Structure formats: structure tokens, C-alpha cells
């Protein structure tokens, strides 16, 4: 944290971009929700419950995307020793965990009518999403259980890098496990393929979620930088007392 890469440049860009990002997010959510709830037709098989897809799929996609992003930030921090990259990974984790949790909850709401159970082990994606949540909790636990920031950053980097590799190994093995125990006839979540009339709403919602994450992430980064400056100030104060 010593020669803290000057956050000024980052803060300048972030503060300039944030208003635009918030407004784009709001517009996209308006269009997406309107599309999801009103204009798109119900599914001939599932009826209205297909509308859950518009909140489930973006959250699930974002849950995985953010974890990969954390892996990328950790790799950058590991190679270039860039403290800002550590802050980016650290602040992205809680956001990713919330979206991952959201995907789990909406997923089980969606599966309930079809399988009649609240937790459908049958669907491999829900299971690997659950394990992804554990990866998030493990990563966040590293930050909270190591008090000294530079050391916590070094350990968190490794946990994220090891995690990113294993998330895909877990996805592969859960899918394989699913085909082993599950006869292939199970209805795939969201039907064989999403027909065109629903696709545009889903894409809008996905972009809206991503912009929401981007905005929240920039704001969290700003507060993380502020928190570090406060911590640094207190240390110097203690130092020359």
C-alpha cells in the first residue's frame, strides 16, 4: 500500500463516468422489465413461470462472470503488484456473492413448479452455482480473517486464482455427475432454446444487470480507496505519536 498507485486517475474517470452508467442502467432496467413482464409472451409449456428466467439467467451469468473477473484482477495484481487490482477483486466479491445467491433463489423458485421440490439437485447448474457461492464465501472469509491488508491481499490473490480454475473443474464434474445419476430426459431449464420473441428482453436485462454491477463496483472501489486512505492516515498518526 506504500506507493499506492495513484487512485486519482481512476477516481477522476470513475466520478466522470458514474452518472452516465447509472442513467444507462436505469433506462435498460425500465425497458428490460417492461419487456420481461408485459410484451413477451408466456411459454406454451411453462406458462407465466418462464418470466423468472429474466431475473434468473442474468444473475446466474453475472455470478460466474464476476468470479472470473476477480480471477483476472488477482492475476493482474499478482503479476504487476498493482494494489488497485487487489481492491477491485476485494470489492467485486460481495457483489458477485449477492448475484450468485439471487440466481440460486430465483432458480429454485423457477424449478419448484416443474419438479415440485424447493431444491432441485437434478439441475446441475443450480448445484454448481451453490458451490460457486461457497467459493465466494471462502474468498471473502480470507479478507475478513487476515487483519494486515498487504498480507490479506497476497493470500486473497492466490485463493481467487486457485478458485477460478477449480470453478470450471467443479462445473464439469457436477455436469458429469448429473448425467450419471439423471436419465437424460429431464426438461432443461428454460426449454431447449429461448425463442426470438423472449431473447431481446433477456439480453436487455442481462446488460442492465451488468451495468448495475459496473456502477456498484465503481462506487465500492471509491469507498475502498477512501477506507485505505483513512487507515493510512491513522497509521501515520500512531507512527509519529
Amino acid at each position, binding site marked *: 500500500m506504500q506507493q499506492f498507485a495513484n487512485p486519482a486517475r481512476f477516481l477522476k474517470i470513475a466520478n466522470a463516468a458514474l452518472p452516465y452508467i447509472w442513467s444507462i442502467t436505469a433506462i435498460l432496467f425500465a425497458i428490460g422489465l417492461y419487456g420481461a413482464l408485459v410484451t413477451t409472451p408466456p411459454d406454451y409449456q411453462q406458462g407465466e413461470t418462464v418470466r423468472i428466467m429474466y431475473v434468473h439467467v442474468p444473475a446466474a451469468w453475472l455470478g460466474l462472470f464476476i468470479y472470473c473477473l476477480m480471477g483476472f484482477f488477482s492475476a493482474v495484481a*499478482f503479476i504487476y503488484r498493482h494494489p488497485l487490482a487487489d481492491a477491485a477483486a476485494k470489492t467485486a466479491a460481495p457483489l458477485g456473492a449477492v448475484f450468485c445467491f439471487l440466481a440460486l433463489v430465483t432458480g429454485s423458485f423457477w424449478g419448484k413448479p416443474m419438479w415440485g421440490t424447493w431444491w432441485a439437485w437434478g439441475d446441475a447448474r443450480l448445484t454448481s452455482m451453490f*458451490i460457486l457461492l*461457497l*467459493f465466494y*464465501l*471462502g474468498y471473502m*472469509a*480470507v479478507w475478513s*480473517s*487476515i487483519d494486515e491488508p*498487504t*498480507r490479506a491481499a*497476497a*493470500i486473497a*490473490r*492466490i*485463493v481467487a*486464482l*486457485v*478458485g477460478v*480454475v*477449480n470453478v470450471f*473443474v*467443479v462445473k*464439469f*464434474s*457436477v455436469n*458429469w*455427475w448429473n448425467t*450419471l445419476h439423471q436419465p437424460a430426459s429431464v426438461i432443461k431449464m428454460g426449454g431447449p432454446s429461448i425463442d426470438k420473441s423472449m431473447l431481446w428482453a433477456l439480453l436487455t436485462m442481462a446488460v442492465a444487470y451488468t451495468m448495475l454491477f459496473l456502477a456498484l463496483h465503481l462506487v465500492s472501489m471509491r469507498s475502498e480507496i477512501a477506507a485505505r486512505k483513512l487507515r493510512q492516515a491513522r497509521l501515520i498518526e500512531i507512527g509519529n505519536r
Partner: protein
Amino acid sequence: MLQQALALITRDIVLARKQGGGLGTAFGFILSVMVLIPLATGPDQILLSKLAPGMMWLALLLSVLLTADRMFQQDFEDGSLDIMAMGKLPFEIVTLAKTIAHWITVSLPLAIITPPLGLLMSLDISQLPILIVSMITGSLALSLLAAIGGAVTAGLRRGGLLVSLLVLPLYVPVLIFGVAASTASLGPSSSTPALIVLCAITLMSLIISPWACAAALKAYLR
């Protein structure tokens, strides 16, 4: 280079033998699990024999996890790791050597002792050989992944909980393919594809674990 690594492995084995190390507690843990499961599920033979491979893998996995947070802690606290990090021997080889010593003293014996205990759960004899083979392969992966958990929490006083939260998700693939490989006759496909993937996972852990442990321990040595 190799001679130094062997010196480290032999020292750790001698140390484990003298100090009792993790094997005693881990074996006690497996025995109690083996007794508790039939009590929990009831004496119904067919159910037990169906559950047996899965439960034994779970017992093996959890018992190796029990010894994870002590793997590097002793050497970290008494300063040996400082000296080992300075030597010509790359630190990744040091952590790998310690992990192999842990495998030989804890995971391997457990992987050999556990299958015969399956008879407690009316496991049919035909499954025993394949169970031992898959457990031995899997036990190396278990040690390598436990080492990552151990290294990441080496400097923490109460790292036990964090180790399980970090390592159990890593164990998911080992558990899935381990059990699949050991349920040869029951599963639709024969066990060899699962065994091959299990070996692949073990090899992957062999590459990731030394790097991760060395990097994590260096962060604590700073």
C-alpha cells in the same frame, strides 16, 4: 536438489512417527464415522451397501481435511520455513516435499485402511479392489488440496474453519469422480473413465498446489 527434498520428506516422516501426527486422530475419526453411519441410516443392508462407497469417500476426505491446518503451522511457527525459503531448493519443491510427506504419513495409510472397513457397511467384496485403487489415487489429490488450505491459513491462529470453507469446494470433483470410480458394478458405465478423470484431477492438483502453497507461505513469511 532431490537429495535435499528427500531429506525433508524423511525428516517429516520421522517426525510424524515420533509425534503421532495426524494419522491417529484421522483414523479414529474414520472409525467413528463408520460406526455412526449404520446407526444413523438403520441396519437395512441394501441401503447400506449402496451408501458404502460414498460414505467411505466422505469419511476419508473429511479426515484428511482434519489434518490440513497443521501441515505447515509447526514449521512456520518455529522458523524452519524461513530457512527453507532461503535455500537453493525452490520453495515450491519444499512445499511439495512436505505435502508428499503428509500424503505418505496420513492420506495413503487412510486410503488403504478405509476400504476393508466397508465390510462394516456390507460392502460386497467385488468392489474392494477398485475402491482401494481409486482411494489411493484420490488420496494424493486430497493431500495436495489440503496443503493449499493449510498454507493459506498457516499464519492464522483460528484457521480451522477457514480451511474447511476453502478446501471442501476444491474436494467436490475428487469426491464425485472418486465415488464414481469406486462404484464399478453399480454405475451404468464401467469405472475406468471415472478413474482416468480422477487421475487427471490429481495431476492438476499436483501442478496447482505447490505454486499456491509457496506463494501463500511467502506472504506469511514477509
